[in-house]
């Protein structure tokens, strides 16, 4: 064989390998804007966003490439952050300040910034007052209920003020032959349960302790996980918990096979209504030991930031401004069944409207921030899911699960990030 050909081929191969590994970092050179969203393929939000993208492209001539994911969304973004190759516009899913702010363009000067609901200031503005994402969704989450199931079981959903009231309601639903609670081991719903309970479960002294980096193991076991353990011992969870997905939860709630679900309605509502358009679904406030009902909430999943390193920053800002136009913002918020994070945006909440009117519109009940985002270190969410899951599946006692939480809390506290 001709040695020159061999050498040339080999060197060309090596050069191709080396050069392919030396591609410049940063956003794609393609002229289309990249837009990543936390949603499923068959969600109503996808249809709405696709329509809005088409309208934006027709109006400005700027192409937008939409990508979406749920299970791997966060992992993908972390890899993209590490390689400084974030999408031009992406959903910050509740973490615009705590996780993404150093990678995002401050949006204070955008025309819609003055219309951001002041209730979101605590969760969406940093110490300097900067805002990093457009809040098309303002999450106000309570306990999802199938009102027909509760009626049949003789439960009055308007009077579940304490955990004892709630436990009594669960017992009634169980007695009616329906699974009182639906949760899913294949999603993060176990973490939602812990987050819901913990957000109004501690004294000021205990909250200060968490804030200053001391995890109160016994308080976590007693005030949070003991409720879960009680529900497990009484057989209140859906029997398919371990293999159930978020869609299974939606299905059980929609089909009247479960009474309550402790996840934000926006996670399951679209699927539930698709499976049973006649489902009588609503939500109620979360009880606590003292009868001080509350909601949890803050920045919603559908909040969109612009990458600081975007090669198409001006186009990206134009796109975000377009999404913020009241009629567009209303469509997105309605598609996820949530309030808008912008004032002056009227949203048709469909089946949830009645619950909003009953509980949220008056503003009488507080909306507490998600506990993990305020009092626990960044990165502990996965541990919250796993430890609560281990109590639900009987793998751990509340005390052992709380000890696991403390171990991870201590490790993550103060970690670079």
């Amino acid at each position, binding site marked *: 064989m001709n040695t020159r050909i061999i050498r040339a081929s080999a060197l060309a191969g090596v050069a191709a*390998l080396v050069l392919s590994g030396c591609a410049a970092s940063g956003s794609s050179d393609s002229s289309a804007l990249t837009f990543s969203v936390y949603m499923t393929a068959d969600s109503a939000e996808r249809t709405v966003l696709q329509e809005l993208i088409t309208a934006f492209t027709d109006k400005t001539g700027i192409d937008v490439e939409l990508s979406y994911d749920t299970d791997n969304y966060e992992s993908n973004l972390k890899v993209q952050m590490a390689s400084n190759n974030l999408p031009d516009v992406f959903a910050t899913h509740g973490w615009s300040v705590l996780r993404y702010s150093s990678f995002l363009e401050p949006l204070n000067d955008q025309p819609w910034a003055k219309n951001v609901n002041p209730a979101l200031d605590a969760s969406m503005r940093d110490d300097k007052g900067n805002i990093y994402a457009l809040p098309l969704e303002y999450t106000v989450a309570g306990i999802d209920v199938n009102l027909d199931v509760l009626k049949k079981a003789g439960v009055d959903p308007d009077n579940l003020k304490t955990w004892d009231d709630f436990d009594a309601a669960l017992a009634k639903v169980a007695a009616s032959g329906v699974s009182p609670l639906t949760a899913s*081991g294949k999603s993060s719903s176990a973490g939602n349960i812990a987050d819901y309970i913990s957000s109004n479960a501690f004294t000021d002294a205990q909250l200060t302790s968490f804030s200053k980096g001391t995890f109160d193991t016994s308080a976590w076991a007693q005030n949070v996980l003991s409720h879960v353990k009680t529900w497990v011992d009484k057989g209140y969870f859906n029997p398919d918990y371990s293999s159930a997905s978020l869609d299974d939860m939606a299905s059980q709630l929609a089909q009247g096979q479960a009474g309550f679900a402790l996840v934000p309605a926006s996670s399951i509502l679209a699927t539930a209504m698709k499976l049973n358009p006649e489902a009588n679904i609503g939500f109620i406030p979360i009880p606590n030991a003292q009868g001080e009902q509350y909601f949890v909430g803050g920045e919603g999943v559908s909040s969109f930031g612009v990458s600081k390193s975007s090669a198409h920053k001006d186009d990206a800002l134009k796109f975000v401004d377009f999404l913020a136009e009241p009629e567009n913002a209303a469509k997105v918020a309605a598609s996820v069944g949530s309030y808008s994070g912008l004032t002056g945006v009227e949203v048709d909440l469909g089946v949830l409207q009645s619950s909003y009117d009953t509980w949220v519109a008056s503003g009488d009940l507080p909306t507490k921030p998600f506990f993990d985002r305020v009092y626990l270190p960044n*990165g502990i969410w996965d541990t919250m899911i796993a430890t609560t899951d281990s109590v639900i599946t009987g793998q751990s006692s509340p005390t052992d699960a709380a000890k696991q939480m403390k171990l991870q809390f201590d490790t*993550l506290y103060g970690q670079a990030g």
Partner: protein
Amino acid sequence: MSSTSPGVAVPRSRRRRRWQGASVNVLYLPALALFVVFIVYPVIQGVSIALTNWNGYSPTRSFVGLENFARIFEDPNFRTALINTFIFGIGSTIIQQVLGLLFAVLLDQKLRGREVARAVMYLPVLVSPVVMGTMYYLVFRYHQGALNDLLAMFGGAPVSWLSNADVAVAVIVIINSLQFMGISMIIYLSGLQSIPQEIKEAASLDGASGARQFRSITVPQLMPAFASSVVLNLIGGLKLYDIIQVLTGGGPGYATNSVSTLIGRTYFGNQSAGYAAAQGIVLFLIIVVCTVLLNWWFDRTRARLEN
């Protein structure tokens, strides 16, 4: 008179021979480059990350020395994952060897349709582990799971198979074994076909029974095949990731994690890239030690049997 003096012609021809020799070496350069880019560089990066407290995406990280490695010894989740990893690795390897050898011996006989049977037995190897995991998820899930539907046909109550950690670990071992049993079968089949027929004929003439022939001829002759199959299956089992991720996600709690799934969870879930890298290096060292020990044992056993 020649235009080229002998003193010049000899070095040229030597140079050409040397270049021809060198050109052979050049052939492995692409493979070497791939090895450096995809193995050496990531390992070096992994070690450097393991010595920091990097969260996996932040531009800043601090050097923490061997802190991440020390943490491994105190972490109950790592201990659980390590035990599971050995169960997955050793359990799968044993089942795959037994079934692989059984089917290899069976399909080495002159049976009608054995080519089709071999292809069918090997087919699961070609299926992606993610697809395999999803298929078995549909078998073991509570609602509409095939197994519970079968139970219902016989009047049994449905069982939440995957909420029991011991059952879930056993299910993972069985699925992994069934999927990759075909590799062992092919290795043993090729080993069986390479045993000279004359040896068996001579043994038959000497009155050796089938079992005796298997023990005294087949097994020793298959030692190289044993070594390859066991080492390959063990490494695969110790690195198990996809099936677990799809089937149980490491749950309930942390009970079915392997070290590989725990690494993913630690890196992306807990945002502890430094600690995840340390776990990865420990897993790498465990696999290296197991492979070296196994190869050493097989070499020694083969030498003993040959003597």
